[in-house]
């Protein structure tokens, strides 16, 4: 009986050791595929707009806006959750994740009203992203301004 206990223990140790890694590998493959496909889709929109004669920067922005629209819609109908469950970071790291981070709490907290529910909760994740992104950009802007002064 002792023997079987030991083997059970060892077996669970082996499982603990090996499965997180193989899980990570599978997760990374899924993230790679979903993230890559989202970027290809965005690139396809850009290429199509460029062929229509749209300027490059505008094409890029419109492509982002399209993805934000689709991600918000998929969040609303409850499909984005499945995409994020499968693709993990592949769905979260592209701009679709930002859109989902805004739309998901907006829908989720609707029952708490449109002011403190929808209006406030939509920035639960997007808020910090904007705050610290902006803060970084101020620092960069000031350094850039100083360099320009010295240089010019």
């Amino acid at each position, binding site marked *: 009986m002792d023997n079987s206990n030991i083997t059970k223990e060892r077996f669970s140790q082996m499982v603990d050791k090996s499965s997180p890694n193989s899980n990570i590998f599978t997760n990374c493959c899924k*993230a790679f595929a979903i993230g890559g496909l989202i970027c290809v889709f965005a690139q*396809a929109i850009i290429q199509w707009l460029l062929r229509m004669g749209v300027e490059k920067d505008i094409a890029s922005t419109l492509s*982002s806006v399209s993805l934000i629209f689709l991600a918000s*819609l998929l969040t609303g109908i409850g499909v984005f959750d499945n995409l994020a469950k499968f693709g993990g970071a592949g769905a979260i790291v*592209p701009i679709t994740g930002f*859109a989902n981070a805004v739309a998901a709490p907006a829908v989720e907290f609707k029952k708490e009203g449109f002011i403190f529910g929808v209006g406030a909760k939509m920035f639960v994740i997007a808020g910090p992203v904007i705050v610290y992104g902006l803060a*970084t*950009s101020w620092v960069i802007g000031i350094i850039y301004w100083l360099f320009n002064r010295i240089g010019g």
Partner: protein
Amino acid sequence: MIFLKAFLIGGLICVIGQILIDKTKLTPARILVMFVVIGCLLGGIGVYGRFAEFAGAGATIPLPGFGYLLARGVKEEVNRSGLLGVLTGGLKMTAAGISAAVLFGLLAAVAFNPKAKE
């Protein structure tokens, strides 16, 4: 070719995010913040711009691309309007994305109800 680059680079950035989620205790929210800050810093030193030229949507669609836009906006506005550009540039450049996310998030909240939890 641009599609292949978009797929590979976009996919790789997501893999970095996935490794951070699985290997560290960082929440997705922290990772999003981190990615935007890193993208902004790389944009500031001019690296991300060249990277975006190379990888197209593969570099601009992942969240570091959002950070890159913040940095690029600030630089362009500093060139145009001096120190004031530090305050205006970041949001000006990212206005479409932020505004679209809020608009469609709000519309989603109006149009849809949360799914009942199983």
